[in-house]
């Protein structure tokens, strides 16, 4: 399977913060409540959690993209 990485659409993101609650291993919030995503591929043990964070983003701003 190709490696995947989380990407935030910064225009769509409105800082709900759901992603950081669902995936604290890879996403933290900055001091204004916007997600800071770890700059590394999603490790194999966290794929289910990553997909859940993507589908639960209220702004549909989070995506899983193939690592080029």
């Amino acid at each position, binding site marked *: 399977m190709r490696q995947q990485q989380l990407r935030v*659409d*910064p*225009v*769509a*993101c*409105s800082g709900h913060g759901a992603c950081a609650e669902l995936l604290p291993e890879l996403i933290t919030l*900055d*001091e*204004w409540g*916007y997600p800071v995503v770890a700059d590394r591929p999603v490790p194999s043990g966290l794929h289910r959690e990553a997909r859940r964070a993507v589908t639960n983003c209220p702004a549909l701003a989070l995506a899983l993209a193939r690592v080029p």
Partner: protein
Amino acid sequence: MPDTLTIPSSPAQPGGSPAAGGGGLPRLLPPAGAAPADLRAHLARHGALRYAGGRGRLTGEVAAAGLTGRGGAAFPVARKLAAAAGARPAPVAVGNGAEGEPASSKDASLLWLSPHLVLDGLQLAAEAAGAPSAVLYLRPGQRLHARLAQAIAERAAAGIDAVGVALVRAPDRFLAGEESALASRLAGRPALPAYRPARGLPRLAPARSALVQNVETLAHLALIARHGAGWFRQAGTAAEPGSMLVTLHLPDGHTTVAEVPLGIALADLLGLAAGQPGSGEPGVSCGPVPVQAVLVGGYHGTWLPAAQAARLPLANAMLRPLGAAVGAGVVAALPAGRCGLAETARVARYLALESAGQCGPCFNGLPRIAAALGHLAGSRPDRRAVTDLERWAGLVTGRGACHHPDGSVRFVRSALRAFAAEIGLHEAGRCSGTDPRPFLPLPADPPSSDADWS
């Protein structure tokens, strides 16, 4: 943008005589003292527009010339042309003359003085892309629009254009010319930057992309088509060939547009000399005026201490390792007696207000960064402002849909380095500034955050 123009002068121009058709400069601008070129004068100087003879035909010559985009990013033009030639359906050709940077007036000067060279290049870009139509996206200014409308009409009457050209007015915003903002404006929406995870040509509609080139880039294209890659390379360096237009802000307060070879020494460009006039003290001066720092690349650019700048060429090969870049050719020499922190704080506030407000980190970070700089520019600032600045700078970098946060932070961080001694002075309750007048140009009316983007 005020409806005014900076009429180019002719500073020292090493590299040749101003003979049209040769490698000498100026190439794009009329020779010093000559009137703006109408179609007849244009044809007399440059000869007829030479089409390449089909889609994709010009790409090889442009690749050999090594032409890069003159809008700021210096992207290889041949690669964009190749992408456009392969795009289906054919993209729309767009000349980008938004020039939202308040310190730049080179595009307006070029459009005013040599409109037909730009329009020639736009036709060539359209041909290279197989474009069915073309757009000239212009910064605000009634006189400039009237002139370009007249030039387009002249060409239509002469029957020299292969595709029609529509004039579209850009909003008076710093980011109006950002490629995705331009695409949004041409699609009939506000000129706001968009998130584009995929590379490639920007899209005006799901099935229509755009080949966007800065207007100066188009003018170079028009001359490469006439004279070839070898001629183009007679100016500039092997790695960065050709000439480019620059907007110079000289320490005596004068602004001028000039056409210079890439790789020209900044010392020659600005007339910098070592030493303070009338004394044996070290330093750098421009004529009788001591210079403390040089801003290279405009408001997304980089402050360099004058002594360092005086040893550097206007070339990315030497500037990029220092975190600087030629950009769109804005170079400003800050005289002694002006506070570099106050100058940077004023511009940082402008940049914060020019955030489109779409991305959280930019919307939240830039105003805080600007406020911290304003604090440092005051008397006896708290040193923690520097720590805050560094943290916020790290937080906004790379987290916007466009390059605005990154460019703004590059500018601010370079000020913290170039004016480190000034911060120390301010902490001691002093300031080297003796002249409170603003030096770097900003729009007269500060933008409001909900100002018109269309």
